């Protein structure tokens, strides 16, 4: 993939995450802090489909943005064909693992498992 496409995704995920995290925070402000963290309240969020979709989107956006940022930092830190390949594929794997694990949590909580 061309670097310009990757960076467009990087900027896009940043903007998307800012908007969705802002909505998430606004929702949290409808209750007081301790109430918001109560078990029933958290599970209710996961079981409300639009909110669960938003949490899934935040997970994807932040994972992609964060690990691409880490990839950029690591590429600037050291150079070399083998090293760069490891960093690129390592970050893709990390995104996939984090999204899979996070999605599992959202799905399990959503379905009450």
């Amino acid at each position: 993939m061309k670097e310009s496409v990757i960076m467009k995704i990087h900027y896009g995920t940043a903007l998307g995450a800012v908007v969705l995290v802002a909505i998430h925070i606004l929702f949290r402000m409808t209750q007081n802090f301790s109430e918001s963290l109560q078990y029933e309240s958290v599970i209710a969020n996961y079981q409300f489909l639009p909110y669960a979709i938003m949490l899934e989107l935040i997970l994807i956006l932040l994972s992609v943005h964060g690990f691409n940022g880490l990839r950029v930092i690591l590429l600037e830190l050291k150079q070399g064909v083998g090293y760069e390949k490891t960093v690129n594929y390592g970050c893709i794997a990390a995104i996939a693992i984090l999204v899979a694990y996070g999605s599992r949590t959202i799905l399990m909580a959503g379905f009450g498992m």
Partner: protein
Amino acid sequence: MAAINPQLSNELPSPIVDPHTDSITLRISKFNPKTDSVVTFQEFKVPVHKWTTVLDAILSVKQHLDPSVAVRYSCRQASCGSCGMKINGKPALACYTKISELNSNIITVEPMNNYPILRDLAVDFTQFFSTHKKLKPYIIRDDSEVTDDSKEFLQTPKEVEEYLQFSYCIKCGLCNSACPTMATDSSFIGPQALAQAYRYVSDNRDTGKNERLKIVDDSHGIWRCHFAGSCSQVCPKGVDPAMGIQLLRGYLLGFRK
């Protein structure tokens, strides 16, 4: 003028010293990668006038105190870009920096950062020029050969303004020396070459835009610029490479055509 190294001052002709002139201590970085493992500094007392430049002071040391000091220079008027070095920690042209404007009695000169050192103040520009060349720093078009019918390619003042400041680059390498990305990423194209890429991409006579954009759109290309802006701060010719890089990004992001 009195050298701190007495051996050398005895061997070389002493300069004529006016008792009314000021003197400064010039600390010169000495390093030969073939023989030395660490950088050392040699100190010299040099008489200065209000018009004395750092290059004048170094050449005075070379002439009277230590002829072994390695320094690259040529035009002495900020046109050739040969005498770039770190002066009191900041990259600058030695011929374009007056001692009087530094407001210090101790002047430290070191080779530029982010380049391999050849010896003392002279650095290796091989990679710098090869990167510059890679970006095709010339007008690309099929009908570039001058014929009777096409003796010139006319441009409006506005079209010239698009790239004019970037054509003032003298390839001194100070921008690359000041760049924080270049300090860690040895494969980074660098502000000089990226600004030159913009200079030709924005020239309406040029048709090589896509070729150049393909080269800069690399994992060690234009996206590794973090817009620190130090390249623009140190440019002795008033070029703003940081702005050129942002404008060049505009083409890749689709903001510019």
